[in-house]
């Protein structure tokens, strides 16, 4: 149990600082999209864009909704997503945990934060997948064009009627992912250092 109550080496502690630095501003400056969708059709060679932020959706929303209503998809409106009410706060909260972890310099605090962050991320991915399923399945039976139900992919290219859709994580998610990775990296660095008998605190 010493391991959990022990302190980080300076290198690993710096990594926790970095994670805090990435996560903390999310609530205050939600400027990076966490997911992007690009839609192309023969008459939309330039493509339509949908950008999902932690607190809203931006891009050619009206246009996409007008086109979607032909196939009976629900209009995408930021108001529908209760997620936008807590997502930025939650991410900043994990930032606070990382900050505390680094400040008090106790492994268990940081690991607890990391585990909570991981759980939250898993929940959000499944939530996002559920939304995608919902948009592709809960089609208005009165729609002018009847499409077989579909699930837009979380990541990658797909076809929907005359549209090609590319769905990719945005720079926000990339940064969040890197912040998340800092946890395992920190521990791996410590394990490696210990096994080489390098100076610093040994794994007890």
């Amino acid at each position, binding site marked *: 149990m010493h391991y959990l109550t022990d302190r980080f080496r300076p290198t690993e502690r710096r990594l926790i600082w970095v994670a805090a630095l990435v996560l903390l501003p999310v609530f205050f400056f939600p400027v990076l999209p966490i997911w992007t969708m690009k839609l192309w059709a023969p008459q939309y060679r330039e493509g339509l864009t949908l950008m999902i932020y932690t607190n*809203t*959706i*931006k*891009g*050619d*929303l*009206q*246009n996409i*909704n*007008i*086109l979607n*209503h*032909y196939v009976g998809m*629900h*209009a995408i*409106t*930021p*108001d529908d997503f209760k997620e936008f009410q807590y997502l930025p706060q939650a991410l900043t909260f994990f930032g606070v945990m990382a900050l505390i972890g680094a400040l008090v310099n106790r492994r268990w605090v940081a690991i607890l934060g990391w585990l909570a962050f991981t759980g939250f991320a898993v929940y959000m991915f499944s939530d996002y997948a559920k939304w995608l399923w919902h948009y592709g399945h809960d089609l208005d039976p009165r729609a*002018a*064009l009847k499409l077989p139900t579909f699930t837009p992919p979380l990541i990658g290219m797909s076809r929907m009627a005359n549209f090609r859709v590319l769905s990719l994580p945005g720079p926000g998610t990339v940064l969040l992912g890197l912040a998340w990775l800092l946890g395992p990296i920190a521990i791996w660095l410590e394990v490696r250092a210990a096994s080489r008998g390098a100076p610093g605190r040994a794994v007890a």
Partner: protein
Amino acid sequence: MRRWIVLTLAGLATLGLATQLTGCAGTGGARGSAAERVYVKPGEHDAYYAFLSGGHHGNIYVYGMPSCRYITTIPVFTPEPAVGYGVDEESKAMLGGFTWGDAHHPGLSETDGDYDGRWLFINDMPNARIARIDLKDFKTKQIFGPIPNLSAAHACPFPTPNTEYVFAASRFSVPVPNRPAKVEDYAKDFRGVIAGIKVDPKDGTMSMGFEILMPPFAWDLADAGKGPSHGWAFFTCYNSEMAFDSLEVKASQAEMDYVAAVDWRAAQKAVDEGRAKTIGGVPVLDPAEVKGIVYLMPVPKSPHGVDVNPSGEYVCVAGKLQAEVSVFSYAKMKAAIDAGNFDGDRMGVPVLKYEDVLEAKVPVGLGPLHTQFDDKGNAYTSLFLDSQIAKWKVGPPWDVTDKIDVYYSIGHLMASEGDTRHPTGEYVVALDKLSKDRYLNVGPTHPEAAQLIDLRGPKMELLYDFPTYLEPHYAQMIKAEKLKPITVYPLAENNKPGAIKRAEDARVERKGNRVDVYGLVVRTHFTPDIIRVNEGDDVYFHWTNLEQDDDIAHGFGILWSSCNMQVEPGETKTIHWKATKAGINPFYCSNFCSALHQEMQGYIQVNPRGSTVAAVQRPDPKKVAEVAALLKDE
């Protein structure tokens, strides 16, 4: 070893020959065959916009150069029911009851003597009007006139180098003010008028500047001075004989007619100082009383076009009935005016001596009409009778250096930015009056003809020949990159009365016999799509297109009526329809918009006179909610 040397030499020789051949095919800066030089690949854009006046069609045609592809028509003085121009309330009011115009001379706005791509002015000759088209959306925004006292604006608009003014001058003199008179009293009672119309530098709005009372000659064409001659405008005339009948003969007798030089700053100053009298509600200056605003330069035999060269030093006047271009020196003109060297006057306008102001006479050929310029100091003059363009050197020895045949009877010509301070010298387009046998025969009404000619080589070279609809006179060509047109009207900037921006605001309001429909159009529905009115009602439809997507315009056409218009993305337009007969009147989207365009329709239910109709009708809330959900942006 020797074999290698021989082979290498042979290879080099072949390469040299090939280069030589390619060099022959392209002349000067131009490359490739004529076909290659006009070919614009599918999906690519032309290098120039060309604006061709539509003549008595009353509009403007837009072409791409060098492909010579027709792009669009801008309705100006003539209704265009397809888009509702002259049908919707705003454009109907702008046309002022006229359904015809004769549009001759496009005039692109200028800054420092070069096209700035902001506005395009054009005259309606017979009704003495000038229109301004905004090149942000290619729409007619103002029609100024009929200008009081002016009888036909032919020498019009020819903007000044910073678009301070556009001009207009009477082609057919009449009594000023117009009143009952005898035509025989022409010389005594009739007068020509030169008008300077102010242009607001910010938004291009035209307003009255000044008018100058001129002798009753036929005022023909104009150009504004530039560079050293900035501040002056030049107007040609014929019929200085003051004939009022059989002009064909009687107006062609005098050896000399005139170019009037107007000091427009002095004219405006005189008006501002209160030296004008008010005729027809506008300030008019009489040169017999107000000195120093206008002078006449004699020029042979019924001249036509007057064109100031790019440096602004020379005023080139085409002889029409004389086979020469008379080139006047601005410096000489100014010196003669300053020295007071006059040869009498015509109705109070001082006449300068021909030999005092003449710089050169260029023997260009028969029937010279108009002159344009390139970037290398050359001028190009159209020859109506010879059906040719003559190229000549501006400056000693004033030689004609090349001629090219055109098909047939050329009027105006349009060089690339060829009337500015910096012509690009790439192309000239011949705008011909007759096409005869040039294209597939479509019966006795022939199209007009135009030829694109390459100016980049030492010799002019015919590239392409294309027909146009009736009837381009002057035209102008501007580098495409100078124009930055919008693709949709930003909804946020739409503050038209009658505009609604939310589905929740869609409604029909009835006050007395007036019904106002506040509706919106979006792919692919009208909201509301059922409208109930009574027989005898005046119905005003205010449709707002809430789309913000490229090229998604919707139409609104009512059956058994002349009511039709197009509403572009972000735009609100109002159209009036009279419910003359009880019954059902379907309406539909007349401009193909999308996959369910055929379904975009609605009904006007016209109840018998005196039926009870709700004062406010709102569409089905469920439908409103559905539409509202679509329109929530960001």
